[in-house]
């Protein structure tokens, strides 16, 4: 593993340089909001951001994605053979919590029996450059409660940490090392820089004020599928699905066909367990008929079912759902309330 130092001011230019060679998906500020988007030619990434409105999962698992094309032939509708694309991409400026979300999504999409080629393909040809949090970006951040760390990014190819005047750049994987050249002629990091990183990293952990007993509630969830607690948490919920759309780990989707004349596509689009028609069967039966059941499903999936299946909590503590909920339903409060019941 190589670790190098670059001057703070140089980073934006380096990213622009990378963007000159391959597509770069990075934080961009428009109005007062920051989103992950593809950098346009000559555009600079926005480096002074807390985190983005949308999660970077969009790059690997876009909200709408064409799975296949078909066309009408004399015999009927037939698939159109597709030529494969395989250009390399760079995902720049991912916060450690969001890097963690990729490991969780990999568990779902990159399995032995059924591997999701659309996700895996994009994931494999993308180099992830993470940007450590010197300070927790938001007061709602709780990554350390769910197995994360504000300054460590297991799964990133390159980790950039802000020091005092420099950025410390660590190349963590062969994929990351391939980009070393594009960073220019860098000074190797000395021990002083590495120990400063450690200091700042500890400070960042200490600065996280929001904590939830995420692992502790598992036993309660195991045993309390039916409990009066579930009767009230959903009351204000609008069933809008904003929390699931902005969540870096939510991955439910719908598959639909769309036709125009003789041609058509089969696409997948994000779906949400918060929607009433999500689990509605053709017969009219709905196993989760109300918002109570849907809320329970969302919480159970993150803190119990996913743990049962993959031994990990399906939440990275980014706080997006907390900040964006139109009615201020706060998953931290709910988890804390459950812990009180324990």
């Amino acid at each position, binding site marked *: 593993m190589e670790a190098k130092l670059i001057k703070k001011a140089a980073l934006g230019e380096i990213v622009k340089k990378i963007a000159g060679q391959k597509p770069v998906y990075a934080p961009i500020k428009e109005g007062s909001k920051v989103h992950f988007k593809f950098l346009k030619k000559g555009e600079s990434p926005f480096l002074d951001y807390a985190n983005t409105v949308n999660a970077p999962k969009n790059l690997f698992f876009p909200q709408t994605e064409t799975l*296949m094309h078909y066309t009408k032939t004399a*015999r009927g509708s*037939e698939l159109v053979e597709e030529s494969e694309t395989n250009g390399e991409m760079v995902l720049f400026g991912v916060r450690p919590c969001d890097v963690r979300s990729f490991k969780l999504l990999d568990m779902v999409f990159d399995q032995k029996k059924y591997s999701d080629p659309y996700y895996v393909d994009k994931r494999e040809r993308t180099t992830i450059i993470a940007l450590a949090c010197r300070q927790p970006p938001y007061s709602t951040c709780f990554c350390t409660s769910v197995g994360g760390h504000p300054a460590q990014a297991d799964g990133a190819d390159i980790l950039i940490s802000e020091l005092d005047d420099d950025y410390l750049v660590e190349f963590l994987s062969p994929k990351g090392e391939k980009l070393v050249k594009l960073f220019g002629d860098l000074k190797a990091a000395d021990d002083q820089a590495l120990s400063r990183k450690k200091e700042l990293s500890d400070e960042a952990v200490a600065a996280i004020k929001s904590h939830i007993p995420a692992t502790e509630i598992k036993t309660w969830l195991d045993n309390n599928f039916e409990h009066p607690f579930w009767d009230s948490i959903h009351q204000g919920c609008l069933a809008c699905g904003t929390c699931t759309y902005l969540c870096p780990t939510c991955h439910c989707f719908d*598959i639909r066909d769309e036709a125009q004349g003789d041609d058509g596509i089969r696409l997948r689009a994000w779906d949400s367990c918060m929607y009433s028609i999500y689990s509605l069967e053709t017969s009219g039966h709905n196993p989760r008929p109300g918002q109570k059941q849907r809320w329970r499903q969302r919480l159970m*999936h993150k803190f119990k079912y996913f743990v049962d299946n993959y031994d990990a909590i399906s939440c990275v503590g980014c706080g997006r759902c907390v900040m964006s909920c139109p009615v201020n339903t706060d998953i931290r409060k709910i988890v804390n309330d459950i812990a009180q019941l324990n």
Partner: protein
Amino acid sequence: MQKNPYIPAPVKVEKIITEVETKDIKTFRLTFLNQEDKDAFAYLPGQFAELSIFGKGESPIGIASSPTDPDYVEFTVQKAGVVTTALHDFEEGALMGLRGPLGNSWPLEYLKGKDIVLVGGGFAFTTIRSLIKYMLDDRHRADFGKITAVYGARNPGLLLYRDELALWQERDDIDMHVTVDKGDENWTGLEGFVPTVCQDVAPSSDNAVTLICGPPIMIRFTLPVFFDLGFSKDNIYTSLEMRMKCGIGKCGRCNVGSKYVCLDGPVFSLAELDKLTPEY
């Protein structure tokens, strides 16, 4: 490289059989256009597949044929939603897609050497039919003990596979009971609800397993009968239905607790279901 699990294999609708008087349930016999797709489609009774009609979408349906008839795959489909309605409008020779086989099967290994009691109600007889055909095949019959089957529908016009039922009733290696809630003037068979018939037939629970598939109301009243007969929850199996999309455990909607019906199911024993959440 691994095959893309979302891409359906092209199949031809070889034959369409209208099963019931109301004409809203038909059996579709599909044949693969490509030999390699046919070879890859190795299935067991109880599994399902996604019927794929471009422009309309996909619909998960249990496989009604048995792998012992290797030339084709059959699905018995009720006309209900967008895809199944489009399918019902098809004529023989039409081209469509098939994706699978998906899910688990009836527990064939576990069933070997045991007496088998099959209970089916109404339209939910399709994967049991697959299993019966499989077990009655010369190559497999010796693997299983006594086979008892109870199949009921609301009226004679709604019974599926009537020719086959008649053949099975003739045979002595399966004890086939066909019943209807209410017969008509030509009906000479049993009349009565499935649970009552099960009670009358009273199969022994000794070294026996029962597989039940039918509308929820039938299952609710049939289960106590089998408990009374001494069947343990480990020896009662059923097949669940859920709204599905991807069929491969990714899209999220068909979970019951931490299990996905499309991946870990659709076949579960009651003992397994007891460990899951009651959301189905």
